[in-house]
């Protein structure tokens, strides 16, 4: 009798879990997940496509950087996507950085150096907010780690602008995006075909821009990823051998007991 009650309750619990969950998820009307893309940095052995990341950096500088900062990055970090020292110095030198105070107590402007952080488009968060309808554009340093779906989401967002469905009530200052939670995003479509003129002859399509800048952002969020995965393979192989040997020792030690 008691066994039956227990069996029944197990079955009920399992049923409740299996039957109602999908419906409940759909009922709450969530924004669809952005489709998965092929990324060079996927998988156990993935690495960043350096050419794509460099093109993505160009997209960031020429388009995104007018509103979005990346305050966790310094120009020197760009060596991580294959820029050499001279290139990094040249990139850093294109920006003006306020420094000081000097020995007379004056602030002064100077060209950037590799140790400088990426300069922000706005002098302070208040300025960023007031220029953008009250909400500051988010910093992009960690963007692919800070959103559900990561790189797929960022790519989906950049390519997901569309006309709103007829029944959808779009606020006047909003833009419709297929993958932004709730679909109404303040940022207008930032990229289009030929937004940026690539120097390496890559065809400048919207998809290409989005893919490149997402690769760049993925690197920016996890600059340690390549080293991490390389070390991980070695660590796991080492542990596999060690554990195998420990197992052999264990068998040997226990042999006389069995």
């Amino acid at each position, binding site marked *: 009798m008691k066994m039956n009650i227990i069996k029944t309750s197990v079955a009920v619990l399992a049923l409740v*879990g299996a039957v109602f969950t999908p419906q*409940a998820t759909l009922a709450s009307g969530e924004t669809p997940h952005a489709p998965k893309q092929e990324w060079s940095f996927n998988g156990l052995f993935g690495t960043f496509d350096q050419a794509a990341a460099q093109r993505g950096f160009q997209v960031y500088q020429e388009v995104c950087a007018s509103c979005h900062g990346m305050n966790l990055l310094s120009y020197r970090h760009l060596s991580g996507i294959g820029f050499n020292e001279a290139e990094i110095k040249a990139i850093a030198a294109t920006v003006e950085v306020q420094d000081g105070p000097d020995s007379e107590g004056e602030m002064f402007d100077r060209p950037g150096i590799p140790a400088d952080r990426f300069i922000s488009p706005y002098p302070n968060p208040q300025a960023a907010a007031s220029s953008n309808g009250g909400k500051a554009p988010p910093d992009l340093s960690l963007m692919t780690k*800070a959103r559900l779906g990561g790189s797929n989401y960022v790519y989906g967002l950049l390519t997901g602008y569309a006309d709103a469905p007829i029944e959808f009530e779009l606020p006047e200052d909003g833009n419709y995006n297929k993958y932004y939670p709730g679909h109404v995003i303040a940022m207008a479509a930032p990229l289009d075909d030929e937004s940026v003129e690539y120097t390496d002859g890559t065809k400048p399509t919207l998809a290409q821009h989005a893919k490149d800048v997402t690769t760049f952002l993925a690197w920016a969020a996890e600059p*340690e990823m390549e080293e991490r*995965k390389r070390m991980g*393979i070695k*660590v796991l192989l080492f542990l596999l051998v*060690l554990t195998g040997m420990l197992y052999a020792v264990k068998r040997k030690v226990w042999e006389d007991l069995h």
Partner: protein
Amino acid sequence: MDTNNMHPVMKWVEYRLPVFSFLDHSLGTQYPTPKNLNYWWNFGSLLGLVLVIMIASGISLAMHYTAHIDFAFNSVERIMRDVNYGWLIRYIHMNGGSMFFIAVYIHIFRGLYFGSYQAPREILWMIGIFILLAMMATAFMGYVLPWGQMSFWGATVITNLFSAIPVVGDSIVTLLWGGFSVDNPTLNRFFALHYLFPFVIVGLVVLHIWALHIHGSNNPTGIDVKNKEQDTVGFHPYFSVKDLFGMGVFLMFFMFFVFFAPNFFGEVDNYIPADPMVTPTHIVPEWYFLPYYAILRAFTGDFLVYQVISLGGFLMDAKLAGVLAMFASILLLLFMPWLDGAKVRSCRFRPIMAMAFWVFFLDCLVLGYIGGKPAEGIYVTIGQFTTFYYFFHLLVLVPLISRLERPKPLPESINASVLKAAE
């Protein structure tokens, strides 16, 4: 320990401070251990390993961390980007927290299944529950330190729970915060306590092991050692090597996450710096707190269990009932040795209790799943049912089944059970 064969230096030390014989009696050849322990008994030593890893990585992190609301988030990112192997140390520490709870939950369920809490190991078990509580406090405060969105809002939600306590609740919350909201003083005291608590855990672990060594390990049959020669083997080399092998397997699991999925257990929102003006859509605690979170949220005004225990809302409001239930869900475990009235320890010989155990286990999993879902629609109903069942199991099923069930015949001895299994 035979001191005659010792190296002269060891002998010199041993004569003045007998560390070598102490070790031999605690972890060595002179510590008799039931020879039938299965791999579920590996998790004690694994927890010791994780504790050491957490303290070592944590101290390294503390050298680079800045406990200030303006700098905490960026100091963690500096560790990730500019400190040599900082990403490795931080990911070990971050995932180590999850590993700690995976191991401790297995350890606890093992104790529940094999009746390890029963006489004469009640105090051993109770110290274990206190270790769990200390771990939870440590983990909660550690999660606040990176000062991301989930850090801030998790801290806000959880500390606010204490305001439900009558009379002194608000004062307790002010004390926890060091002010009138979660702010810089909160972060500072959480950092100080997060550094302190692991050493409290070390102290509790010493007591836990001390209590363990008085009567030795329980074992899968749950019967006592009758003949030391036949039933037990020396901890070293038999279990030292088995534990080392277990550590190898466990480290592979641990390191897979560290190197290939370091943010698997985390919340993406915690990579957004804390902002008191923006509330995340779903505030969820770390996965290991989800079952308790589900219990907390199950208590709404119309929950039947709440109506009954509060005499129709007369005694307390639903928030207080939820907070009490959440703490009770752990504190009740302290009374397991008395809730369980069986003469036989192991569920191997208590088939009905074993069934109840697995349903309870499943119930805890469902509670965890519900804790991670928004409190709406069917999730509320399932959460309330599983919450009810959690307490129903501990307060009704365990006392009844343990006293009514007639256990299967026990093997004559540990040795006899091993010989029988080998046939």
